[in-house]
């Protein structure tokens, strides 16, 4: 087992241990905290495909996170009110259907955004993804059908066949299971032919073109896959909070996801998990002491960028090996 595999395992097990410990000592609040970590980690695993493997600094992934959230909220509200959706389709509170909807919706939007944004590079790419996400944000605010600025409540958490998602620990396992699936997908992609081309596009676009592979299509596919994973996380986030609002779509959210990845380790398998755990812990423990906890987060981020470029995983496991 390589050192990085070991570190990844330890990080993931640490996340798993939090709700188990919380249940044992009866501190159920920490289950919610761990669930939040798992969901944000999944969203960041998605972004890590574009950002870490492909070097695509998307400052608009909140769009996909929010689209996933609204997929959950809208389908659930139609099911709750027993109102059909357009074209006579029924609403639903079944998570698998909601996730599939979130994946398809965020994938399609990413295809459109990516097709345009990926014609640019560098800082222009950052700005154009931000611009698209903000367009969707303002659309959600001004669209009264689903709560507009006030957001949309999910009165009863959506259901997964065969389990009781109202139970906090059970819902954690659902999220943790999806996080594991996301990590598996990331690791398969990274080591595959597609991943090789994607990482080559990040390292040296000209080299990739010179061997006869057009970087654009590779990046577009990566951007879409990346958005789909973040979209599923958005659906879970809405279910965790039983609420979805335009804030899920705002640029703060996009920035948060980037921060998670930088903290944990850009392009590293367990980077987003470590980053999400650290971020949520900071938010909770320091947030309890001072309202200005983000100042300390900023200092931490500064320290990571200056002294530990590889984030937590880089610090523990050393430089990434590519075989």
């Amino acid at each position, binding site marked *: 087992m390589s050192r990085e595999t070991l570190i990844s395992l330890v990080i993931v097990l640490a996340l798993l241990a939090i709700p188990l410990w919380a249940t044992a000592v009866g501190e159920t609040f920490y289950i919610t905290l761990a669930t939040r970590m798992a969901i944000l980690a999944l969203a960041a695993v998605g972004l890590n495909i574009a950002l870490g493997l492909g070097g695509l600094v998307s400052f608009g992934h909140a769009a996909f996170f929010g689209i996933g959230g609204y997929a959950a909220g809208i389908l659930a509200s139609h099911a709750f009110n027993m109102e059909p959706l357009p074209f006579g389709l029924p609403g639903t509170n079944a998570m698998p259907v909601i996730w599939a909807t979130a994946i398809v919706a965020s994938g399609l939007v990413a295809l459109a955004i990516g097709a345009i944004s990926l014609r640019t590079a560098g800082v222009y790419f950052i700005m154009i993804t931000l611009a698209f996400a903000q367009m969707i944000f303002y659309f959600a605010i001004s669209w009264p059908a689903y709560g507009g600025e006030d957001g949309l409540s999910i009165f009863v958490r959506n259901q997964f066949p065969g389990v009781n998602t109202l139970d906090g620990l059970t819902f954690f396992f659902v999220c943790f299971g999806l996080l594991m699936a996301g990590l598996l997908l990331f690791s398969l992609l990274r080591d595959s032919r597609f991943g090789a081309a994607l990482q080559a596009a990040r390292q040296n676009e*000209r080299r990739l073109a*010179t061997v006869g592979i057009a970087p654009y299509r590779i990046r577009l596919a990566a951007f879409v896959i990346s958005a789909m994973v973040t979209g599923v996380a958005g659906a879970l986030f809405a279910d965790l909070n039983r609420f979805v609002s335009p804030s899920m779509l705002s640029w703060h959210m996009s920035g948060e996801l980037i921060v998670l990845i930088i903290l944990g380790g850009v392009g590293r398998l367990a980077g987003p998990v470590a980053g999400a755990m650290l971020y949520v812990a900071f938010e909770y423990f320091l947030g309890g002491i001072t309202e200005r906890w983000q100042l300390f987060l900023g200092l931490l981020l500064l320290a990571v960028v200056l002294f530990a470029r590889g984030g937590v995983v880089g610090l523990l496991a050393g430089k990434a090996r590519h075989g």
Partner: protein
Amino acid sequence: MAEPVLQLSNLTKTFGALKATDDVSLDLRPGEIHALIGPNGAGKSTLIHQIAGSLKPDTGTIRFLGRDVGALGVPERARIGLGRTFQISSLTPEFSALRNVMLAVQARQGTSFRFFRPVMRDRSLTEPAMAMLERVGLADRATIPAAELSHGERRQLEIAIALALGSKAFLLDEPMAGMDPEGSKTLTGFLDQLRQEAPILLVEHDMDAVFALADRISVLVYGRVIATGSVSEIRNDAEVRRAYLGEEA
């Protein structure tokens, strides 16, 4: 005479007032090494860029294997068999030497949209890539990241990549640049063999190598071909000696 593999006709490229390529016509025939020489700034690299597709000529045509490739981009031209190396090595620095070549093998197979099977356990990638590294003498450096290879090794690696692409013509932009005499000598021997696989358009400053290897030489000065001919013709051409070899005629 055999049909040329690559044929440039009346290529022109200007940057503002500068004529980087001025009505250049030349061809590359099967089995030959055609050397392109000329002083710095003569437009040799600019010409290579136009052939490879990274620059678009203002006028003129480029035919490769009997087909006008003017409308094709860099990846398409690479796929139909134009293999190039760069004046300054251009590799994927984090990947090992082996993975650099594997990328070319994968590109040649046209299989970059496979998402799940790990490449390092895929013999249809690793074995051909390893064979190419052996050919250029880099087999024992296979696991070293490209960024950590020596200058000369990187040049060899670029050639291994072009080989792995199964190129039908090689465009080599100063492959000897910065190499020690020993390395140049080895590479000269290697290129001598390589021409049997596919013809080579060789941009090079190392005159010993050029005179040893070239079947034909074209001399480029201020974007214009002032002479094309065999080694002895070029050596004895008065205009070339004046313009380039630096001798008073």
